[in-house]
């Protein structure tokens, strides 16, 4: 039987890097420096600049962009984006966990096949897929016809261009990014552990909360990260399925570059958005380490 994983045991094993460690890490660091840090620095510089009538950056210092970012308008938009992302993450977790667990309990060959089948729908084009959803959700669409046929509703109800449609689209798009990481952890869990818990008299709920959840926690956390973070900046789905009725932070940032022609303000929004993530993530990490 496998030892219960704890962050502490992992950290105890980690050794000081010496020269070799740093050398091994070098490619990753170089990549991050060149293609993440450098562009971010460009962004940071832009965010303190002004612009000309084409939106191009004019290098003269101003705080103005940041003052605008922290106006109630943009904070509310950010709040709404986080709300949608949070809801999406929770729904994906609830829907995706049992699937990941089920796939992990299959024979190895079947596991890989099922995993592929989870992902393959997303090898179609995003727009085509979304238009298929529109066909399903529209007023005279598939779902309404089905509900009417089943006598559940008498008149077609409005599904498309509503928050329901937006959430459906978001959950659909992000579900695989929850299932796959959880599977990664669940596959490692020894099935006999669960049986043992059961033998010891633990009901399914008890077994779930005291055995399964702790063992798959790394996968759950990874899934939450991979769904929640990208979902905050998502807007294409809300535009197409929600009818672009409410602005989200992703739209607002994109519009600064592609409509308002205000690169510096777009850069400032990007910087604040990124910093918000950095602080939250660092705090979460510190807390986890302290718990461990």
């Amino acid at each position, binding site marked *: 039987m*496998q030892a*219960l*994983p*704890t962050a502490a045991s*992992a950290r105890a094993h*980690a050794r000081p890097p010496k020269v070799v*460690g740093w050398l091994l*890490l070098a490619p990753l660091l170089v990549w991050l420096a060149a293609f993440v*840090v*450098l562009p971010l620095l*460009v962004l940071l510089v832009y965010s303190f600049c002004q612009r000309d009538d084409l939106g191009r950056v004019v290098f003269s210092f101003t705080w103005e962009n940041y003052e605008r970012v922290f106006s109630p308008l943009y904070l509310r938009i950010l709040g709404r984006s986080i709300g949608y992302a949070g809801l999406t993450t929770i729904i994906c977790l609830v*829907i995706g966990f*049992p*699937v990941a667990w*089920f796939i*992990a309990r299959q024979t*190895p060959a079947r*596991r890989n096949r099922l995993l*592929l*089948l989870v*992902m*393959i*729908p*997303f090898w*179609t*084009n*995003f*727009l*085509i897929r979304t238009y*298929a959803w529109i*066909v*399903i959700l529209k007023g005279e669409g598939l779902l309404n016809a089905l509900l009417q046929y089943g006598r559940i509703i008498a008149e077609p109800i409005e599904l498309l261009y509503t928050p329901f449609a937006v959430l459906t689209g978001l959950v*659909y798009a992000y*579900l*695989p*990014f929850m299932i*796959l*990481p959880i599977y*990664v*952890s669940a596959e490692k*869990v020894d*099935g*006999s552990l*669960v*049986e043992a818990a*059961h*033998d010891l008299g633990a*009901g*399914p709920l008890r077994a779930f909360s005291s055995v399964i959840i702790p063992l798959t926690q*790394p996968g759950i956390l990874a899934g939450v*990260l*991979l769904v929640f973070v*990208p979902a905050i900046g998502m807007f294409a789905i809300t535009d197409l399925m929600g009818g672009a009725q409410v602005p989200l932070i992703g739209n607002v940032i*994109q519009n600064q*570059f592609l409509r308002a022609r205000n690169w510096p303000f777009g850069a400032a929004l*990007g910087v604040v958005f990124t910093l918000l993530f*950095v602080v939250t993530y*660092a705090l979460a*990490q*510190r807390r986890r380490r302290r718990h461990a």
Partner: protein
Amino acid sequence: MSTPSTSRSLLPSGLKLLQWGLGTWTALVFAFLYLPIGVLIFYSFNTSRLNIRWEGFTFHWYERLASNEPILRALQNSLIIATVTTLASVVLGTAGAWILYRYRFRFTGAIQTLVCLPMVMPEIVMGISLLVLFTVLTLPLGFTTVIIAHITFCFPFVLVAVQARLQGIDPALEEAALDLGATPFQAFWLVIVPALKPAILSGALMAFTLSLDELIVTFFTANAATRTLPLQVFGLAKTGLNPMLNALSAVFIVSTIAFVLFSEHLRRLARPSGAPHS
């Protein structure tokens, strides 16, 4: 490594019921995942040019597709870019995760945060800032620049998935290998990598999917010769997404699924039943 729950017949009835429930749930979720795919395949046989209302059955779009050079070229570009991106992301992500796990760096936390940044950065910001960077470096736009950009936002997904798997990998494993005289690289390749296989596969799938369907970063880093399928399709939205695009998706999806099922069948044929699966 791990074994699936063995001797199913001996399972207690409560667990059996749970198993059955999980299976049904999974089937429902698969139905949800494939519902729009079914619809889009159905509409690939639609005579209507605008792809919105059903008008009649035709193979016309499949014929049009076969002779549409720009679309097939775009698909080819997308596949090349996604494949190279996936391979590079797997190497960078897996090695990165392992090294960050194996050694206690001074700034592990900071590096960890940096790794996740490409997931946070809005696509437009990443696209424009990378374009500015490539211009400064006088790197001409093309496959290289698109692939660099794609690796940057894809490899974190591999790294995060591998990290989830690493937590709780028995530390004794590597040590045992080293004690038996393996070099650190051998220990990594022969002991750790096999243990990470599910995570690497998951990460690769995510990277491939993300790269295949990315639009905005690609727009800013591509040139005329590297136009990808999403760029091509998005442009078509203006004149009307015709069923030819559905036909393209249908062919691609159906052939992939067939390949997945068929390759398994072939392997089973090649190997008599009962042989261990590697």
